[in-house]
């Protein structure tokens, strides 16, 4: 009925999810689709759990992705991947950075960071691609380029032209970081498909 594609970008405030969604949004426009990108600003950006919804198709209605609707979840952190797993559509793809960042309840000892999350998500039947995006970003020249590494990985699961991605990165990334980010994208894009 509804041909809208839904992508969620999830992570921890400060990890650079906003740049990832900006690049993705620009790529979608270049590809000629209707698009909506939704995020919540304010409180949630102070190291809290952050989520961006990106939706595209011939006509997009709701700006948000609901439970069981995401074709792809692109996660910057393991716990956040697990948190948003219920949003993944049956047969959807979960791409996650293997990085772990302790939330405050874990830091204070009030809660425990669950173990073997990636295995458990796979056991649930989720199609999970887990990778150490931080190492790839560092190999590209900056730990901050995790976002573009992950966009590179995501590009393998979308039928967009390589030119479209390059042009969007050019448009969204400041000139002085362009080289690092292009390298980061290429490292992500050439990462073995899981």
């Amino acid at each position, binding site marked *: 009925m509804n041909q809208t594609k839904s992508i969620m970008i999830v992570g921890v405030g400060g990890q650079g999810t906003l740049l990832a969604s900006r690049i993705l949004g620009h790529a979608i426009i270049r590809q000629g689709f209707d698009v909506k990108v939704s995020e919540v*600003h304010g409180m949630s950006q102070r190291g809290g759990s952050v989520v961006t919804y990106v939706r595209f198709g011939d006509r997009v209605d709701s700006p948000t992705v609901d439970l069981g*609707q995401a074709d792809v979840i692109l996660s910057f952190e393991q716990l956040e991947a697990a948190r948003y797993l219920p949003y993944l559509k049956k047969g959807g793809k979960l791409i996650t950075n293997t990085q772990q960042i302790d939330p*405050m309840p874990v830091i204070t000892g009030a809660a425990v960071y669950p173990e073997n999350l990636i295995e458990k998500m796979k056991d649930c039947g989720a199609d999970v691609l887990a990778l150490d995006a931080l190492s790839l970003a560092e190999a590209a020249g900056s730990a901050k380029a995790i976002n573009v590494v992950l966009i590179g990985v995501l590009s393998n699961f979308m039928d967009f032209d390589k030119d479209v991605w390059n042009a969007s990165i050019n448009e969204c990334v400041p000139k002085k970081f362009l080289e690092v980010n292009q390298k980061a994208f290429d490292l992500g894009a050439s990462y073995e498909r899981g």
Partner: protein
Amino acid sequence: MKQLMLGNEAVARGLFEAGCGVVSSYPGTPSTEITEEAAKYDEIYCEWAPNEKVAMEVAIGASIGGKRSFCAMKHVGLNVAADPLFTASYTGVNAGFVIAVADDPGMHSSQNEQDSRHYAIASKVPMLEPSDSAECKAFAKRAYELSEQFDTPVILRLSTRIAHSQSLVETEPRTELPLKPYEKNPQKYVMMPGMAKKKHPVVEQRIKDLTEYAETCDLNVEIMGDTKIGIITNGPSFQYAREAMGDSASYLKLGMVHPLPVEKIRNFARKVETLYIIEELDDVIERHVKALGIPVHGKDTFPLIGEISQNMVREKLAGEVPDTTALSDDIPVRPPVMCAGCPHRGLFYTLSKNKVMVSGDIGCYTLGALAPLAAMDTTVCMGASISGLHGFNKARGEESESRSVAVIGDSTFMHSGMTGLANVAYNASNSTVIILDNSITGMTGHQQNPTTGYNIKGDPAAKISLEKVCEAMGIRRVQVVDPYDLKTCDRVLKEELAAKEPSVIISRRPCALLKYVKHNPPFTVVSDKCRGCKSCMKIGCPAISMKNGKAVVDQTLCVGCGLCSSLCAFDAFDKGGDKA
């Protein structure tokens, strides 16, 4: 080419294209970006006002002065600006005057969930509500036309999902408008009883005229599909409903949410078998429809609380529940925290250690209420910290005065803390007020304010001295501390709590996220020295965690503030960059 624009950015574009000339606002999530984006257009004079009431009065003045004007605020900001709103409804406008108010269903970043449509009803002004960014721009422009055609302020209502969603917008050029002539007209602009009595019937007639307009205007549109289910809806709810039901329902989408049409609703109701109202927060449309004697489902099916979603509509109207996967593990919550190096941390640690009652306020520092600092007892609204503490102390007496403080940020103090401090001085309570001066409006994402010395464009501006304001109000005890200096913070707090007169402590250090703030190299833990006593964990720094019984500092997060080091009895923290 169409551009991807945030709803707020699209409102700003609408202001620009409509020839708006003056914008005055106070920041508030989710409305802030409207004014930030408007400030990028050189054709529009933009400013941050100290609060929403001032902002609205500036905009009213600019409208009377002959330029299309605007102010933006979050829903609770409209409470502050309610006073001018109700009487501006009587005076009407000269050039068009538009108010944007952004509601926050789901309370993503707010202290309550009020529905601003009640203000449009109570103040008898029209209210438009867009459903995407293209409508944000179009409705902002239409609001100016309505304002001038019907001689009224017009409210543009947004909600978080519209304000903070990006969708495609076609831009058009600006229509430059000449300054309208100003003519002295006390009958219109001086609202004292004699004049206001003549204006009230005008306001009542205006609402009747606007209802006529609502019957025929293209802001309220029918989208017909299957007629078994008919849905009357507005704002983001329209998007959720349409996604869930597609052509299997018919819609009456209300872009003008006050006043509501009568015949248009009757006509639509006649065409469908079962009628639903899908609206977030209160049952405003539902009450109107029920008053017309039309049977309808609304809040018997959809909640009064929080946001609506496409799944919710699908479940309620089509009985479909999504197939989802979840882990059986408890996933720990990840609440927002004070950033590493946040200057508020040291001060809140001091309050926590001294076990004082803390009358809190609205800002980043409200996070001081969360564990492990847990140093806040109350938070009500902007400015309530100081006045609330005064009342608390008047109720509980002298003993309370030596064990309680108010905390308020620099921007919030300017917004509505000063009047509370005047009350403390005037009505003499020995209250201790702490102004957390981080030299910026923090939580909304770094806006300038009257204490920072810069204006909205980043140009130098008059800088109000907090010390001098306090002294001028008759506060004789004013001390300034650096919140990174825990010893001094502790000493000064104890002194001022003991003092038998009102006092102000200014805790001064710029927000660690400000670009000009230089960070020190990150600290590291000398594993041999760390005894695992967890003293450093009491400050709730996101950069410190315990691994195998020892503290570890995250090198990417630490900004070298040294607070952890000053709490460590074993000298286990090694200052970065010190190593020879």
